[in-house]
């Protein structure tokens, strides 16, 4: 390397990254929304565990939890949670073809087929869980 070269040249201008850089472009907003809504997925998982614990403690405990969940404000909050987790799931599944390169008979499986496979698995899991909870 040239001895005159200085990696941190004092006269070069370096732009600072603003804290709200992600608000400047729709694609960045979508990315941050996708990443942040993963917290809602974690919340739903914890809520499920709380349900299991309430059932374990007995009928009174379970009914108290259901009573709390039936309040209008709590219902409204959970509708928002549902929308957030749906957004997360859809944006996440849509990225799957980018990472998965599957070859069948020397030919690459088209992105649409991989996407359909994921959505099919999602619907199948949803039906299985609903069947387990509600019964046939």
């Amino acid at each position: 390397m040239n001895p005159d070269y200085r990696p941190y040249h004092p006269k070069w201008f370096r732009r600072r990254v603003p804290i709200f850089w992600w608000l400047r472009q729709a694609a960045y907003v979508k990315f941050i929304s996708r990443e942040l809504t993963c917290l809602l997925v974690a919340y739903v998982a914890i809520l499920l565990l709380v349900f299991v614990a309430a059932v374990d403690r007995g009928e009174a405990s379970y009914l108290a939890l259901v009573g709390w969940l039936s309040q209008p404000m709590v219902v409204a909050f959970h509708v928002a949670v549902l929308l957030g987790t749906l957004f997360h799931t859809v944006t996440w599944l849509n990225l799957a073809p980018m990472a998965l390169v599957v070859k069948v008979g020397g030919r690459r499986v088209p992105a649409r087929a991989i996407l359909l496979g994921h959505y099919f698995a999602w619907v199948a899991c949803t039906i299985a869980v609903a069947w387990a909870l509600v019964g046939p």
Partner: protein
Amino acid sequence: MSDTVTMEVLRYRPEEETEPTYESFEVPVQPEWMILDGLNHIKDQLDGSLSYRWACRMGVCGSCGMLVNGRPVLTCATYMESLLPGPIRVEPLRGFPVIRDLVGDITDFMGKLAAVKPYIVREEEKPVEEGEYLQTPEELAEYKQYSMCINCMLCYSACPIYRIEPDFIGPAAIALAQRYNLDSRDEGAQERMDVLSQHAGIWGCTLVGECSEVCPKDVDPAGAIQRYKVSATVDFFKSVLMPWRKE
């Protein structure tokens, strides 16, 4: 259609000023003029001190990448007419320190590119008398997409991770590593994995996906990085479950 358009060009003259400023130029709109033609008009006719990089004018050399209206593009491949009525704002690529006007310092990228060994690595070269390393069209198709990279660095400019974590090796370097990994003649995948399995390598990527959106050559660096993550994960589980397996 108006005859002229205003081009707001970022100027930075370190010997005169400590902060960049925007300077407006009225540039004639000619059919089929690119942004680069507008900049050349400014330099030829209005202000010869304007500094920027360009060479081939046909989307091959990768040196004229700039931010045009906030989006990283090749200025030789962006029609001025597509951005009328203007004003058209031209800035240097984000993520690189500005040396002067529209010229950024790319030393960081050059170092990262070298770190991933973007060339065919052989454990043992066969003697010249034995001839070339032959390849089938199918083997070529495996990596051809990634070999289209022209090192224009638009993907670095689109990547927010690179700006926030400057150690991140970045989209083009990883796509080029993948280009050689997928080449049937190459045997350097493990050496590259040693560099890329670090946090600053593939795991630094959080899949914003903008690198692939702005790529003028459809290289899809975001896809290359995700494929790399999948193969690194598979390798890890194989090494845990089958420790007797040879690397």
